């Protein structure tokens, strides 16, 4: 039971890390290597409002999410949009966007180091224990898991049961065909990229409740997010959440039952397995 709940909580954390990237890569077709930095920026924002004004990181989301949406929308509009119009093929766009966002990640590390310094950041919020089935867990992790669930469900409902969501899915499946049926592809892509950034920054704000962050730590989150998105299937929120939970439970199981030293190995074995047997991802559709 301990393994299962700890694994679920960890999976929730992973879902927070990866859902935003899935929107950005799946719909806007931007392989955003600055994803981890955006997450750390969200965490720093939460740290800042918490230490400066004793504002709860959960309440801070009211500000963090819209600001992150605006920033990411602007990044897409002014930095990435020209790459999209210039790119002749999807492959070319991927190479260009990887390079551009790789550069962006350096710039963001620089800005955060300049603004906050290079030290470690953490704070104590809801770090008390809560007992579930006889074992203790951090309240902050449980809250983060609950919000991750909420975000995932909201995104899924929105994507699958609204017209705006339908437009996003149409662009995700085929941008050219989406244009033919009258969808404003650039606007939808910008919306998806902004939304993805907002989700990522939200994840960062929540994760900062129990993670020690520093300006340079973002790349670790980017790596994890990439694995989860690829495992779950590009452009499928459900797949990302399932992959995140599987990874969380598998890592916790290996750590507790076999050896904590093998958690990374377990993650990569799973990743390899998916690549070998379902290269399109757990819920991805085979390319036609």
């Amino acid at each position, binding site marked *: 039971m*301990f*393994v299962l709940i*700890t694994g679920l*909580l*960890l999976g929730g*954390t992973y879902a927070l890390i990866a859902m935003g990237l899935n929107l950005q890569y799946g719909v806007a077709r931007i392989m955003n290597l600055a994803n981890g930095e955006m997450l750390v920026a969200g965490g720093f924002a939460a740290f800042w409002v918490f230490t400066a004004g004793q504002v709860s990181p959960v309440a801070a989301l009211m500000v963090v999410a819209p600001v992150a949406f605006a920033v990411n929308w602007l990044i897409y509009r002014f930095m990435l949009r020209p790459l999209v119009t210039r790119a002749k093929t999807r492959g070319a766009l991927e*190479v260009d966007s*990887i*390079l551009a966002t*790789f*550069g962006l990640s*350096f710039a963001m*590390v*620089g800005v955060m*180091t300049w603004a906050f*310094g*290079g*030290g*470690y950041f*953490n*704070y*104590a919020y809801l*770090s*008390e*224990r809560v007992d579930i089935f006889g*074992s*203790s*867990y*951090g309240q902050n992790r449980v809250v983060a898991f609950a919000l991750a669930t909420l975000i995932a469900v909201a995104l899924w409902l929105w994507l699958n049961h609204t017209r705006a969501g339908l437009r996003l899915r149409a662009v995700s499946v085929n941008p050219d065909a989406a244009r033919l049926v009258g969808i404003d592809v650039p606007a939808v892509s910008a919306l998806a990229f902004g939304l993805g950034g907002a989700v990522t920054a939200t994840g960062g704000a929540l994760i900062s409740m*129990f*993670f*020690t962050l*520093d*300006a*340079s*730590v973002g790349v*670790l989150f980017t790596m994890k997010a990439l694995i989860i998105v690829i495992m779950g299937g590009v452009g499928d929120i459900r797949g990302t959440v399932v992959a995140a939970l599987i990874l969380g439970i598998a*890592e*916790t199981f290996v*750590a*507790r039952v076999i*050896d*904590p*030293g093998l*958690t*990374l190995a377990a993650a990569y074995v799973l990743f390899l397995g998916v690549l070998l047997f379902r290269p399109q991802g757990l819920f991805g559709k085979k390319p036609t």
Partner: protein
Amino acid sequence: MKRRTLMATAAALAFGLAGVTAASAQETIKLGAAAPLSGPLAGGAAVTHWPAVKLWVHQVNERGGLKLAGGQATIELVEYDDQTNPQQAIQAAQRMATQDNVDFMVSPYSTGLNLAAAPIFAQLGYPQITGTAVTNQQPELAAQFPSMFFVLGRTGVMAEDTAKVLVDLRDKGEIGNRVALVNVADAFGIEMVGISRGVLEAAGFEIVYETSYPLGTQDLAPVIDGAKASNPDAFIAWSYPGDTFALTDQAIVQKFEPKVFFTAVATAFPGYGARFGANAEGVMGMGGVNPDDPAFKAFAEAHVALNGQGPDYWASAATYATLEILGQAIEATGTKDRAVVMEYLKDRSNSYETILGPVQFNENNDNERYWTVGQWQNGVFKGVAARGRDGAAPIQLKQGWQ
């Protein structure tokens, strides 16, 4: 193709980021410093390394500079970011020596970067007085790189003293025989756990739980759960900053309350006390200082005044002391001629007055007097075990978490 472009972009960015400061008119000593401003160790360097370096330069310049035979010379600091990358650390040292023509260099931050830079320091003839390198290979290193000096201590001794703290507590009947031993799976963690396991087993302790976890792991609930299930008297973790915080946090959450709770790197950071408050009380870690020592007090005050943050309770003072040693060697010889200063440093009969107390190097260029184990007591991380230093505080058992 893709990868090559990526690398080229990264290299171009790296060159763009490295800043160079301008020259001035008066007689100056150029001091080069390359250490992490980005990368995995930037967080530690921002606490321990950079503020101490800046404080020393600031204080020397404030009193008019270092006294050379021909008058006083102020210090001009040239800074580079080594990105926590050994290759960059080597290149930065080379660049500082050949392009910036610095007179001396601050040794890099961390054991790994110091080892990486040792050959280039030796080859270029710069003294490398390390304040953040802990290793057990001082004799071999000093033989191979005679320009390398060690102030912070030996890993073997630190692991031994940590084990000895347990032996003492057991012999006094305050704890039992059961120890849980965990480590971060990198060179530091593996070396430390190996030594402490040996000492503990030789002293008749039973290792009831032993495991390692990958570098960068902060989800440590399974580790704490496993340790707790083994019901140990003492918990020893050879950990790095992120996991030091995460282990403590999880131990509090899961009510894991051994009588000795030891985490390694970052336990001595002021941020640790700030983060855990009353729960930090009784936690042990590497290093320590004598906080009542007037020299340390003055250092801490000046550190806060200049940097807006306090020093850590371990390597900050050692980093500062390495520069005091360099400065005293320069003033004693009255020259910025590196070869002369190096000869002075190699003369084992010379002693240096530092905030750590007097420092002298032995035949292995090693300082033999340093703090080995510290413990949070009344909001301060006090040294509780040391080699050759006075003022160790009595050890307290860890009370339960609040």
